[in-house]
């Protein structure tokens, strides 16, 4: 019988909502950071133009070459920033606030997740609400771990925004009380298969964000190239948010996106295999084109396509980035739409 007062489950739910609120604040801080980077970028550019004018006065350097070396230097600097070790990172105040808030939100998030698991007496990923709870937690965890290696704080607003929306949405729409597990879910494969699937989602999310930035950066680079030698040179048409100037080149973003995508792809391949083993135990066949199986397969093939595209002439660059974006859209679709509306054997959303 439920005890009076707050149950573990209620506390978990409160922690989750607190985490959502903190992530929302982190999102704002990161967004301010990006806006301020734009300012910095503009200032840096003005300074560069002054230097350029001085230089042009004396030496026989054409403005065009100066611009070119300028852009290259900017890109190299951005790449160095990206790979700078922890101690030597740029001191973006608002990004720091954003990261601190993200860590704080993450602590609440972990608390909520763990309490949910304790309340249920099992791993906290056995229905849609719990998938979202643990999946978003892994996204933040992977993001924070990756921050040790790369300065990806410019993805902070994307990550915290995504997580706040999904976690908040799940708490609103998917939340269900703890119920005992249905028999087919009582399996070690629930622990492994679902966890690894969520983990790969986290890597796909990072790859997706980088691919989007890659496309924006790509557009900006083209516009900048097209503007060289025209009247617009000084002030090229607006081609995307100006914080892009502080980010690495489209090519560097692409190779980073690829690195995350292949890690995600490996985990996804494992998910596919582990799922088949489980299906063979639970349903008596390892593969049956059940709706969820179809979508797992579609996602796998899409990312295989993405990896191929990167090795195919004419598909590297923007086109392959689109495949990464389509792939991640399929991941989200698989989680939200397929779980909720498609009928199949994987009826574990806990929603009716």
């Amino acid at each position, binding site marked *: *019988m439920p005890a009076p007062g707050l149950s573990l489950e209620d506390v978990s739910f409160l922690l989750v909502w607190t985490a959502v609120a903190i992530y929302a604040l982190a999102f704002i801080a990161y967004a301010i950071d990006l806006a301020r980077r734009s300012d910095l970028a503009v200032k840096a550019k003005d300074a560069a133009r002054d230097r350029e004018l001085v230089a042009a006065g004396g030496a026989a350097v054409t403005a065009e070459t100066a611009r070119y070396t300028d852009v290259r230097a900017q890109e190299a600097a951005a790449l160095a920033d990206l790979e700078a070790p922890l101690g030597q990172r740029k001191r973006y105040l608002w990004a720091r606030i954003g990261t601190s808030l993200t860590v704080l939100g993450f602590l609440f998030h972990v608390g909520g997740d763990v309490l949910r698991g304790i309340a249920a007496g099992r791993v906290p990923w056995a229905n849609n609400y719990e998938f979202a709870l643990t999946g978003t937690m892994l996204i933040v965890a992977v993001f924070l771990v990756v921050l040790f290696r790369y300065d990806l704080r410019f993805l902070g607003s994307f990550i915290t925004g995504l997580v706040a929306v999904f976690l908040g949405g799940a708490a609103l729409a998917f939340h269900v*009380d*703890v*119920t*005992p*597990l*249905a*028999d*087919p879910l*009582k*399996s070690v494969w629930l622990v492994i298969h679902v966890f690894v699937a969520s983990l790969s989602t986290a890597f796909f999310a990072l790859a997706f964000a980088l691919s989007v930035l890659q496309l924006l950066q790509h557009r900006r680079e083209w516009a900048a190239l097209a503007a060289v030698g025209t009247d617009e040179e000084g002030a090229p048409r607006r081609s995307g948010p100006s914080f892009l100037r502080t980010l690495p080149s489209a090519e560097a973003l692409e*190779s980073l996106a*690829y*690195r995350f995508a*292949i890690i995600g*792809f*490996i985990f996804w*391949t*494992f998910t596919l*295999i582990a799922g*088949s*083993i*489980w299906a*063979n*135990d*639970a*349903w*008596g*066949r*390892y*593969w*049956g*084109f*059940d*709706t969820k199986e*179809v*979508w797992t*397969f*579609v996602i796998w*093939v*899409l990312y*295989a*396509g993405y990896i*191929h*595209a*990167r*090795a*195919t*002439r*004419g*598909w590297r660059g923007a086109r392959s980035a689109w*495949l990464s974006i389509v792939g991640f859209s399929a991941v989200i679709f698989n989680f939200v739409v*397929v779980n909720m509306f*498609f*009928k*199949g*054997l994987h009826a574990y959303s806990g929603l009716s």
Partner: protein
Amino acid sequence: MDDAGAGDDERDARTGIAQPRLGLVGWLRWGWRQLTSMRTALVLLLLLAIAAIPGSIVPQRSADPNGVTQWRTDNPDLFPILDGLQLFDVYTSVWFSAIYLLLFLSLIGCVIPRTTHHWRAMRARPPRTPVRLSRLDDHIETVMPVPGGATAADAAREAVASAEAHLRKAGYRVERYDSEAKGRVPASFSVSAERGYLRETGNLVFHGALVGVLISVGIGGGLTYTGQTVIVEGDSFVNSVGIGYTSFNPGRFVDVDGLPPYALTLDRFDVSYVPAGQAGQGQAGDFAAHLTVAEPGRADRDGVVRVNHPLDIEGDRIYLMGNGYAPTITVRNADGDVVFREDVAFLPQSSTMTSLGVVKIPDGLPQQMGLVGFFYPTVTPTHSGALSSMYPDLVKPLLTLDVYVGDLGINDGTPRNVYALDTSEMTQLTGRQIDVDSLELEPGQTAELPDGLGTVTFENAQNDGAPGVVKRYVSLSVHRDVGAPFVLAFAILALAGLLAALFVPRRRMWVKATPDGADVRLEYAGLARGEDPAIATAVADLARAHGASLPAPPDDAKVD
């Protein structure tokens, strides 16, 4: 990009040019080249992804036959069109098959030449050191003073020898390319090293293993069978197509008469329900079918089938697919002779196990008789006065029966669904529809049939030795899948290949020493082959480690 990939590009480029007058062989060759190009592979992959989607939207005959029937009822006009497009059998359709077969043809055509190419590359020596290493992206140059008492050439030779040892220890395959001074050309000493052949090996293993998966699925499918059966507590099943199965689907090459001989007896079926008042009330779980397995020449043994834990017998796997109640019903005619006595499996209609069952009595009564029964394990009246079950366990069991007499429609010998009664040629004697109370029976009770036809008894199964007052039954599925272990093995091989292909760096390294007056110029350079984010670090590490091991440490490195 790998060698083979580059080869593809070249091929792509060549095929882009219109070639005059192709003979049949020429056209075939052209078609083959198109098919095995990277671009075709990519397009086919994307097509495969798209083509798989409709099968998740429209119900499939293989996974959800009832859904297909329902769809047909709901959309009678659209159905023939979609059916013509094979949209209810997407994964065996002509168009889906065409895509994946072409893809695998492309795959094979791609992998074979790459395998021979790789085979040769693995046995070739690392390539000659480029003349101007400084042209490479990752390049470091240092200057080492020649130690006293040595010539510059000796110092250079020695430095390269130590670099060679270094690289070999780091897993590189190495080759020395030294040239003595000749006329005006100065002497130069260098080692060329290459590592990461495993990357391409992994790639080939991965793609090859995919072919293995497909073949295992294809061949395995022909040798695979699945069969369904229902066993009531106390009853047995014999593994033989004619006797034991309610349905049986063999693959093309299955010897239907050669099934392994064994028999299963259901001793007991266990299930637990979440008690009323708790979250998930009435949810069933911990299903366990306790069986006795009898095999010729062996002592009987116990076996348990649970969800997620099938029972393995002689290469067959037995799965628990469903369960329900099987009330024992006895019908006697007006003279008191037993005309029917059976455990009748009732189909559950809800999670609270309100169940539906049918009894057909063709002989022994003046007219053929059919009974349509509802069984409620925990009966409770609803607002409308109809009955329902509020809990799935046997708390207050009740059986209701509607009686029909007339023609059962089974005389012509065509098989009928045992769970449905065709009442078109029958007269209803009890039931709400005709305002006559249905017969209501608790276990152990007997009721009179209308019109003095006789009696019907709902037996208390415990008198029969069953664990509960009503027997339970399980539906089991028997599977043999010969291909599955191979599919799994190839899938794991593919995963292993993938790990190597994506994470083993393939790179070439060179260390070159050139005597230069009183100094030796040392150059370190690396070239990534395929994705290799760490190449710059690798070159820098090599330069540092090698520099530190030299007798006369060089000056600060110049990186460019």
